[in-house]
C-alpha cells in the first residue's frame, strides 16, 4: 500500500510502493494472475448517493501539489485527464511484474501479459456495449483510430464525386484525415455549419446528406464548446441514405455512458488518456462485418497467420489491425480507468459535472467583458471564453501564476475559431474531481487578469 511520509511527495511514495510493497497492491491468485472485478463496470451498478469529491481527489496524486505557490487547480481535462492511483498502479504492475510480450511466448509472464491485454479488450467492449471484444481494435488514440478508418476503409469505399460529411465543430483529427482521403480519391469534404450557440442543427446535417454521401464523421462532444451532438438521429439520417457513421468520442467517454449499439454508429473512436487512462492507448470500435470488410492498415508482426517470402496470410480482426507490439501496459491501464469510472458510475459523474457546469457558467458571468462561447442546450463541462481586449494567452499565463491550469489557443479546431471570429479562446474543462472551489479559484484568477489588462 502507498504510505505517505512527511518527507516524500506522493509520486515518490508511489514509486516506493511499486518497488517495495508491490505485491500487496492487488490480491493475487495462486497462479499469480490478478483478480479482477468482472461484469460491466458502469451499468447495473448502483451509482449510490453521488460523488464525494474529497474521496475522489485523494486518488489523484497529481492534485496534491502546488504551482507557483498555489494549490493546483486542474481545469484542462479536455486536453488530458489526471490519472487515479489504480491506473498508475496497473501500468506499474505490468512493467514491474507481468512484463512480457503478448501473443508470443508460452512462458508464464507472456501468458499473464496476454491475458491482461485481452481482458482489457473485453473491458473496453463492455464499456461501450460492443457485441464482442473482437470489435475492439487498440490504437494509439482517437487520431490513429480515425486515420485507420480513413486508410483501411474510406480509401476503398469512397470514390470520385462521393462526399464525406463532417461538421464545423470538428477537432483537426476529424478533419485532416478526411481531407487526405478526399485528395487521394477525388471525393469532396462537406461541413454542416455550427449555429451561434455551438449546436449543429439536425436540419443542416439533413440538408447535406445525399446519395453521394458515403460517410458522416462527427464528434460526439465538441472539445471546444462541449456541445453534445445527436448521434442517433444523425446516424438514422445517414443510414437512410446508405452512408456509414464515424463518431469521434474522445470528449464523450469521460462524461457519459456510451452504448455504441444504441447510438447506431458504425465506427466509434476514443482515447484512453482523456478517460483517466494512460496516454498512447486508444480504441477503434467498428461493427464486426465492417471490420471484416476493411483492408489492411499497417503490416508487421502480430497481424499475420503465416508469412512466406511470397505471400502472407493475415489474422482475423481485431488483430489484423494491430501490427507490432501493442501498448500492453496502456491497454491494462485503460482497463483500470474504465473500472475506476465504473465504481463511481456515470450517473454520479454527470450529476456532479452538470452541477459544476451550471455553477461555473453563472460565476463566469460575473467577469466583466467575458464572452462564453458554446451555450448549446445539451453540453458537457467545457467552458470556452474570451475576455474583451485580453488575448487568451495572457489569460492563460496570468491564471497559471495562480496555480490554475486552463487551455488557451485554437484547441485544434481552427475552423471553429473562424466561425466565432476569434483568433483563440481560453477553455476551462471539468472532470469528476473538480469542485466549486476550483471554479472560485479560476474566477479569482480572472479578476487578476481584469485588473492587469482591464
Amino acid at each position, binding site marked *: 500500500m502507498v504510505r505517505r511520509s512527511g518527507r516524500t511527495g506522493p509520486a515518490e511514495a508511489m514509486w516506493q510502493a511499486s518497488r517495495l510493497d508491490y505485491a500487496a497492491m492487488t490480491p493475487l491468485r495462486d497462479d499469480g494472475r490478478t483478480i479482477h472485478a468482472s461484469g460491466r463496470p458502469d451499468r447495473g451498478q448502483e451509482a449510490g448517493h453521488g460523488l464525494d469529491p474529497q474521496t475522489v481527489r485523494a486518488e489523484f496524486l497529481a492534485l496534491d501539489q502546488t504551482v507557483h505557490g498555489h494549490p493546483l487547480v486542474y481545469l484542462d481535462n479536455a486536453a488530458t485527464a489526471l490519472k487515479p492511483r489504480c491506473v498508475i498502479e496497473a501500468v506499474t504492475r505490468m512493467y514491474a511484474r507481468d512484463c512480457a510480450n503478448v501473443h508470443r511466448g508460452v512462458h508464464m509472464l507472456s501468458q499473464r501479459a496476454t491475458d491482461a491485454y485481452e481482458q482489457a479488450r473485453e473491458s473496453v467492449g463492455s464499456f461501450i456495449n460492443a457485441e464482442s471484444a473482437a470489435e475492439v481494435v487498440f490504437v494509439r488514440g482517437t487520431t490513429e483510430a480515425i486515420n485507420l478508418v480513413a486508410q483501411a476503409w474510406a480509401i476503398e469505399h469512397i470514390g470520385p464525386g462521393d462526399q464525406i460529411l463532417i461538421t464545423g465543430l470538428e477537432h483537426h483529427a476529424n478533419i485532416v484525415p478526411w481531407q487526405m482521403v478526399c485528395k487521394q480519391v477525388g471525393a469532396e469534404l462537406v461541413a454542416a455549419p455550427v449555429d451561434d450557440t455551438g449546436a449543429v442543427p439536425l436540419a443542416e446535417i439533413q440538408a447535406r446528406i445525399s446519395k453521394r454521401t458515403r460517410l458522416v464523421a462527427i464528434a460526439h462532444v465538441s472539445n471546444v464548446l462541449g456541445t453534445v451532438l445527436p448521434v442517433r438521429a444523425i446516424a438514422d439520417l445517414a443510414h437512410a441514405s446508405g452512408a456509414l457513421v464515424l463518431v469521434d468520442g474522445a470528449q464523450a467517454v469521460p462524461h457519459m455512458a456510451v452504448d455504441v449499439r444504441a447510438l447506431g454508429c458504425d465506427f466509434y473512436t476514443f482515447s484512453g488518456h482523456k478517460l483517466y487512462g494512460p496516454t498512447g492507448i486508444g480504441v477503434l470500435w467498428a461493427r464486426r462485418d465492417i471490420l471484416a470488410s476493411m483492408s489492411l492498415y499497417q503490416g508487421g508482426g502480430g497481424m499475420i497467420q503465416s508469412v512466406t517470402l511470397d505471400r502472407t496470410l493475415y489474422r482475423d480482426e481485431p488483430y489484423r489491425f494491430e501490427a507490432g507490439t501493442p501498448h500492453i501496459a496502456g491497454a491494462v491501464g485503460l482497463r483500470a480507468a474504465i473500472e475506476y469510472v465504473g465504481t463511481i458510475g456515470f450517473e454520479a459523474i454527470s450529476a456532479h459535472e452538470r452541477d459544476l457546469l451550471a455553477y461555473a457558467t453563472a460565476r463566469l458571468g460575473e467577469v466583466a467583458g467575458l464572452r462564453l462561447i458554446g451555450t448549446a442546450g445539451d453540453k458537457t463541462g467545457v467552458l470556452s471564453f474570451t475576455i474583451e481586449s485580453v488575448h487568451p*494567452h495572457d489569460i492563460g499565463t496570468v491564471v497559471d501564476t495562480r496555480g490554475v491550469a486552463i487551455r488557451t489557443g485554437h484547441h485544434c479546431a481552427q475552423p471553429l475559431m473562424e466561425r466565432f471570429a476569434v483568433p483563440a479562446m481560453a477553455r476551462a474543462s471539468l472532470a469528476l474531481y473538480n469542485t466549486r472551489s476550483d471554479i472560485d479559484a479560476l474566477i479569482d484568477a480572472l479578476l487578476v487578469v481584469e485588473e492587469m489588462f482591464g
Partner: protein
Amino acid sequence: MSDLDKLYRAVILEHSKNPHNFAIPDSANYRADGHNPLCGDQVTLGLDIGPASHDDNGVEIIRAIGFRGVGCAISMAAASMMTEVVKGLTPSQAEILAGEFEALVKPLSASPEVADRASEHRAALETLAAFAGVAEHPMRIKCATLCWQTLRAALTTVSHS
C-alpha cells in the same frame, strides 16, 4: 516583484494597450508577415529603408517602420517597442540587435543586467530588458520573438535586393 509583474512589466502593458507605430508607413518599401500558427499571433511589418539623406554617401538605414497585427500583450508590446528601437539603425545593426534580443529572452542566458553586455546597442537593450521576464515562461518566448523574426525576414529581402 511577483513572477507575473516580472513578465508583464508596466511598460509592456502600456505598449500592448497603446502600441506605437501601429501603421504601415506610406513610404514602406519592404514588408514581411509573421505568423505564429500555434497561437494565432500575427504581425505585418512595413519598413522604409534607404539612404539617411540625399547627400549621404549611400549608407542605408531604417528610415521608418511600423506594424499591424493581432496577438497577446507580449507579442504586441514586443513589436511596438521593436519599432521604437530599430528606427535609424542600418539593416545589419538591426540584425545584431535581433540576435541580442533573442538571447535576452532565452532561458538561462537571459539577464536583465544589460549594463554588463558588450553591445553597441546598450540603450536599446536597456529598453528591451523589460522582456527579460519572458525567459521564465518558455511557452511565451515565441510571442516576444515573433516580431524580431519577422524583421529578420524583411531584412533578408533587403540583403537579396
